[in-house]
């Protein structure tokens, strides 16, 4: 046994062993040889790598490198299907498609973008997060693709604006989803409840549910972005979208009395009245979904991906309504995060990358996503007549909005979002401490935006 093992380990050392001959040989010579050996090992490894590259890149097909963060099961399958459709239409182009876990992609993207051979096409968030890279000159100007594909006409002005910096287009927005308050239809029927339009109606619904032993709202704030949705909506409904977006851009203060009002007059009462489930910080958003599934809770403020996670045989039991209006004088703002694609400025295959991008923005590709994923298209030419009632309703929801925000952690800087969301969950645990929490958050804001 011991001998077998020794043999195994010895294999690794075999070259060195062979050279370490005994005898009066002067030491320096042996050393020279050993150095050689180490070099040899390195060379062998390089050969292995070269071979692999040859295998995966047939000479006759041109290559587009495509890295995607669509790692959720359903979008990932659709993503892979789209690549296949493209390759069938363009047999001379091979798309080297890599899917990277969503969170990891966000970390790796700075490596991708600054590498000497970056991926050609990448998924990313529209808005501020893309703007950052555009300003650094890392994203290619694709105005020509917009022009050539007729997107300037086929895409709504809002999406075009989201992709444009200094009159040039850099981004292709392709998919977006709405946020809304999802609820159990059967529970609402049971207690004779209607979809609430105003804050008073909403509170009334909560009160009725609670009186009947059902926790009105579920939420999982273990990762606190879910709490940020409540902040986005309350702040937009109370103070209006304009104030909200200025706060996101660091132009307003967190210790402003208007911000304080959001917490003390609207958010805190919901918590203190026991309208939310107990101990939300113990759950992720999808773990908290369980309470809606088992009927112990009836409503959930969430993005439309909620329906992807809901047990397939019960998803018919849920519906959604617009976050209730608080101050009718304020314009309506909605969260509708938009994702899309761009081409790296350093792309090695810009022409083929543009061909691929043109396909991703085409009616064909968007129709596929809409049909398979139930996602809303950005291209107006997509046929929406066959949309399900749910999709139609979502579309109406966003069409009725005066302002569309991206989401807290996309609208403000990543660092501010991190501190802000952490503050929201601290408020959740200690609503009485909100004043002190906002003062601290304001200090952070000054620190963060002073550096920008």
């Amino acid at each position, binding site marked *: 046994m011991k001998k077998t093992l020794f043999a195994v380990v010895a294999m*690794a050392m075999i070259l060195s062993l062979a050279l370490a001959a005994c005898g009066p040989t002067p030491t320096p010579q042996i050393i020279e040889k050993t150095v050689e050996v180490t070099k040899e090992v390195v060379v062998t*490894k390089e050969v292995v*790598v070269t071979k*692999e590259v040859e295998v995966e890149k047939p000479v006759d097909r041109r290559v587009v490198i495509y890295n995607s963060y669509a790692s959720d099961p359903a979008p990932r399958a659709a993503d892979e299907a789209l690549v296949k459709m493209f390759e069938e239409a363009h047999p001379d182009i091979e798309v*080297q498609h890599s899917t990277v*876990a969503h969170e990891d992609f966000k970390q790796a993207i700075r490596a991708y973008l600054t590498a000497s051979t970056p991926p050609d096409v990448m998924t990313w968030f529209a808005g501020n997060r893309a703007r950052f890279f555009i300003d650094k000159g890392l994203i290619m100007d694709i105005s020509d693709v917009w022009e050539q594909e007729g997107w300037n006409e086929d895409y709504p002005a809002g999406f075009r604006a989201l992709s444009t910096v200094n009159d040039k287009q850099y981004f292709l927005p392709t998919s977006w989803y709405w946020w809304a308050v999802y609820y159990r239809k059967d529970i609402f029927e049971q207690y004779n409840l209607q979809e609430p339009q105003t804050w008073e109606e909403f509170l009334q619904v909560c009160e009725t549910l609670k009186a009947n032993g059902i926790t009105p709202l579920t939420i999982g704030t273990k990762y606190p972005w879910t709490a940020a949705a409540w902040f986005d909506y309350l702040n937009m409904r109370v103070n209006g979208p304009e104030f909200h977006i200025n706060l996101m851009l660091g132009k307003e203060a967190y210790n402003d009395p208007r911000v304080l009002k959001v917490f003390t007059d609207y958010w805190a009462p919901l918590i203190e009245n026991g309208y939310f489930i107990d101990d939300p910080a113990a759950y992720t958003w999808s773990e908290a979904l369980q309470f809606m599934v088992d009927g112990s809770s009836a409503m959930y403020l969430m993005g439309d991906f909620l329906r992807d996670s809901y*047990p397939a045989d019960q998803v018919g039991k849920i519906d959604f309504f617009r976050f209730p209006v608080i101050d009718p004088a304020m314009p309506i703002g909605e969260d509708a995060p938009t994702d899309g694609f761009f081409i790296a400025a350093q792309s090695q295959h810009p022409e083929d990358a543009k061909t691929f991008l043109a396909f991703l923005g085409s009616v064909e590709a968007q129709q596929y996503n809409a049909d398979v994923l139930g996602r809303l298209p950005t291209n107006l030419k997509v046929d929406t007549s066959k949309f399900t009632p749910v999709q139609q309703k979502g579309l109406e929801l966003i069409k009725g909005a005066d302002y569309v925000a991206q989401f807290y952690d996309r609208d403000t800087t990543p660092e501010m979002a991190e501190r802000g969301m952490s503050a929201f969950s601290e408020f959740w645990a200690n609503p009485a401490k909100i004043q002190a929490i906002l003062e601290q958050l304001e200090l952070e804001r000054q620190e963060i935006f002073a550096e920008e």
Partner: protein
Amino acid sequence: MSTAKFFSSPWRTLGFFLLILITLIWLLPFLTALLTSVRTNDDILTQGFIAIPKEWTLQNFVTAWNRGGLHKYLPNSFIITIPALFATLLLSSLSAYALARFKFPGNRLLFFLYVGGTMLPFQVLLLPVFRLTDALGLYDTHLGLILFHTAFQLGFCTFLLRNYMRTVPGEILEAARIDGCGEFRIWAQIMMPLTLPALAALATLEFTWIFNDYLWAIVLLRTDALKPVTAGLATLQGQYVTDWTVIVAGALIATVPTVLLFIFLQRYFIEGLTLGATK
């Protein structure tokens, strides 16, 4: 001691059952993982986290194998881990020998460098190492990743092997020197065999670490075709939706090589982790 004799003492019997109880508690999370791997997400959502499934399924293993791409990522894991492992052991045993058996200026400083290098939270090195790799033209190659793993593990391995090599009695080496053996032969034919238990122990630990890495893999590799199994498993985590049952199943598959190695090297592992403490 025979089993009958062992249980003849009531105290020993009591202690034994206590041990069984503690062991079972210790194994609970592992058993939960096994249980989870044969359940469905809907089952977890409707029945709770720890429950006997209404229906058993092996589908998760199939999904992990196909969608997680384990079949294509697993070979990459070996292509990365095995050369890195051997290079680490070879190079660290060289430097450990020098630090353990020679008195020369800078010995302590170098030892400090080796130990100190392992102290930095290595995540901070990600971008500098990425820049270096890219500058050398090794970005998106296995070699770049192998070189980094080798270099980074050198610190810990040198630290342990040096301590181990310090405990080898000097007389053996002295006798060999008098016989006219060169230092390299002493290293290869005397020191290395004597260090075998420590090398086996390190091989197991290092294999586990390098094999399980994925942070570096996603930063130093860009192409899916080159990525190791851990990166493949990670892609099963979505932004919002994650198939936990599939991830657990995939993770269980991915532990197989480590477990096999552990079983194979166990004898030496138990002996070898002495790490220079005895003899």
